[in-house]
């Protein structure tokens, strides 16, 4: 099976770079799988799961990412996201605290900007919690 080069970069580290057979990215309207020789593409990545299959392996590696973008060009995929964590790295307590905090703030009066801000933090916390539950 042919492979292609994937580079997954978060703000604080280069999470993965190497050849993979397939990568699944979360998009605003669903999942998007990219295989080798995909057409050139630029897409927005929503916070959620990224799955990829390394060359010569059958297992899927899973990563929880924040929002960002992905670029497919000349059989190379570059994914730039705010955060990237493996399910083991997620701090459940911190995530649930963040969720509680966000929910509490949503109940109070806020400006539109604050509202968007809390909604975004809530979404991030939920995504992390979902990921850690799946792992258990």
């Amino acid at each position, binding site marked *: 099976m042919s492979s292609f080069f994937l580079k997954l970069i978060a*703000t604080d580290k280069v999470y993965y770079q190497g050849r993979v057979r397939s990568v699944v990215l979360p998009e605003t309207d669903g999942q*998007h799988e990219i295989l080798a020789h995909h057409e050139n*593409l*630029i897409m*927005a990545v929503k916070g959620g799961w990224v799955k990829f299959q390394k060359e010569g392996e059958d297992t899927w590696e899973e990563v929880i990412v924040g929002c960002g973008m992905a*670029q497919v060009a000349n059989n190379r995929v*570059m994914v730039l996201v*705010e*955060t990237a964590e493996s399910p083991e790295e997620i701090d459940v307590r911190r995530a649930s605290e963040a969720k509680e905090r966000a929910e509490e703030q949503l109940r109070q009066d806020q400006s539109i*900007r604050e509202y968007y801000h809390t909604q975004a933090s809530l979404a991030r916390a939920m995504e992390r919690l979902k990921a850690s539950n799946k792992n258990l």
Partner: protein
Amino acid sequence: MASTKEIKDRMKSINDTLKITNAMYMISSSKLKKARKRLEDTEPYFFSLQGTMERILRHVPDIKNIYFDNYNDLRPEVKTVAYVVVTADKGLAGAYNHNVLKQAEELMKEADEPRLYVLGELGRHYFEKRNIHIDQQFHYTVQNPSLSRARRITEQLLDEYAQGKLDEVYMIYTRMDNAVTETTVTQKILPLERGKFDMKLPAGVTLENMNFSPSPEAVMDTIVPNYVTGFVYGALVESFASEQNARMMAMETATKSAKNMLHDLDILYNRARQAAITQEITEVIAGAKAQKNKK
């Protein structure tokens, strides 16, 4: 020649200052270690982000989007230009703050209607003292930059940009080139300039085809806020590392020159002491001689 006591006092005061500069040197060098680690972690993202954005701007079809410069014909004649200035919270960092502030002042002269968003306590005081209006709500520290702080900064900037309060946004920060050189950089964050990339393309070269999923407009709407957040974060990390580096070097120089001064004063002190002894001996001998002659 100064008296030995004066020299001793002087040496003591220099010694006290030396202790402070030396301590500050040690603090900033340990902070620098942390900052540099973070900078190393962030640099791949920061540079890839800028590279990717450039590539996207080269390929994006002709769409009207609020984040693009062709949107400008809808904007007023007099442009409100925002400058996000990144300074340190404290001074004693060599030319670090000075360079940033100088660049900011120069740029402000050219703008129709400049607005200042200052990060860092020192920069805020500087502009307040000169009675230059700065945004008071914009109150963030530059210590230990975090992604959530970058997000909040971006939210505020994008919000005001979308409301039409700001027409252009620039960021003035310091980039760390290597351990000894730092450059003050001004980067336009918004609106994105697409036009300038069309010019660079040599004749006969066709652009590769790029598709956008689901649509260019939707992609730009989600990507641009992320890009700005990423850029702000990267710039904050670069600035923080530069600040620590500048302070470390400034304190190193201060410690070195204090040591030089101490050395010079030491010689001066020895001379003064020797002169005093010689004088005393001369006096004693002269006195003894006078006594002898009396007999």
